[in-house]
């Protein structure tokens, strides 16, 4: 489906969906509370069929955190970016690793580097840092006088 058709289909299926303009692909903003349901429908609706989650990351905007999910469909080859705004002090969102198995490791990485808690994740532990590490390294306010070298 082309971008316009996709946008139309999404507006029909997800009431209250916000779209961000600009950018190569359709970008949909979703509330954290509705994210899991939206994700499930993106996967299961046969006209959308987003079966491939190819990038899962987080951006620290200093006032809030944003989760960014990139989806594509191997059947229709359309692409979608979903963004979810999270509260910086208590960032938590539902996991999608039972819908897309690849999210398991990606969510662990986001937890490790940003501190986002994924509800119902089977094994939410740090991935790259050691288990006893304090702090969330990729956040903008992360200070580490020992390990960080400021240019």
């Amino acid at each position: 489906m082309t971008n316009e058709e996709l946008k139309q289909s999404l507006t029909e299926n997800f009431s209250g969906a916000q779209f961000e303009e600009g950018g190569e692909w359709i970008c949909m903003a979703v509330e954290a509370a509705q994210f899991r349901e939206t994700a499930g429908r993106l996967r299961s609706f046969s006209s959308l069929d987003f079966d491939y989650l190819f990038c899962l990351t987080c951006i620290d905007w200093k006032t809030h955190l944003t989760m960014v999910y990139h989806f594509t469909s191997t059947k229709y080859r359309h692409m979608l970016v979903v963004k979810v705004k999270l509260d910086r002090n208590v960032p938590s969102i539902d996991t999608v690793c039972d819908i897309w198995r690849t999210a398991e490791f990606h969510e662990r990485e986001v937890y490790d580097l940003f501190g986002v808690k994924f509800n119902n994740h089977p094994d939410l532990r740090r991935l790259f840092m050691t288990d006893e590490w304090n702090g969330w390294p990729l956040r903008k306010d992360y200070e580490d006088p020992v390990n960080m070298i400021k240019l």
Partner: protein
Amino acid sequence: MIEELGTTTEGDLVINIGPQHPSTHGVLHLVVTLSGETIKNVEPHLGYIHRSIEKMCESLSYRQFIYVTSRMDYLSSHINNHGCALCVEKGMQIEVPPRAQVIRVLMGELTRLASHQLWWGAMAMDLGALTPFFHAFREREAINEIMEETCGARLTMNYMVPGGVMADLHPNFVTKVKAFIQLFRSKIDEYDELVTGNIIFQNRMKGVGRLTREDAISWGCTGPTARGSGVSCDIRKLYPYEVYAQLKFDEVLEYDGDCFSRYLVRLAEMRQSLSIVEQLIDNIPEGDFQAKTKAVLKLPKGEFYSRVETARGEFGVYIVSEGATTPYRIKFRSPGFSNLSALNHMARGHKIGDLVAIMGTLDLVIPDIDR
């Protein structure tokens, strides 16, 4: 850490494979729970070579950050750099001259060949056949020499810049590459004879580590790992960049999903890469090797994603820019990360020897995973 594995039952053996490992995979630490010789659970412990490249790039300029990606997947360093350069060019709307495009594709395909050669040698070595390793490296030397003449380095060739390539091709490039093509054509057949047709080898790989098509997509596998399960995911075909749209080559798919299919896919890819190099080497257009760009690059505010097909799969570069000279956030979507996450699923129920075979066919490069 081992006591936390609450799923062990009486009589299970928990062993560590790695991080220092005789196989040349890098610093990967696997905690394997065995029941006798059968694997019950494989848990990768990552982070031994985590250098927080993504955070580092937030303080590097747009010209500088490209070269840290050479150190990520060092076997596909050209292709990684290419992905980064493409993203910057997308953001700045820079048009790459045709000569530069062809040179980039040539370098990328030669790198893919070199990476697959090393994979083949290391894979055979993991399974116990120690001789193919030397054969693979002998051919790889030819590519390394070609790279050294033009780019100045043999492994981390910092050759791509936003807008083109850093320097023009060496005068010997065309002759050397042609000589290499002649040499390698016959060598691939030799590889087939030596290893592919060997019945011991086939028995070690057939039926091992099955990954169905749905699982491959769900686990996010790309590259030869997914193509061995019948998933069509070659970025060069689906979302062509540079001159790939005009080239004639096949996307090789196998449908069994076991180690042997992935092996065959990579061998076939070597042949395809060779044919791409052959198509291009006589038709390098004249012109600039670099587009004129400003000295200091500033991407406009926004987000940009570009993807390239490395030897391991889809490498994605996601830049979030606030209009400054350094990126606000960069995310590298590395192919090895998703491929590795499927390891537990593939290895359950097999023996330790099979684990080695499966890791070999996933073609893991740990710095790519840890970033």
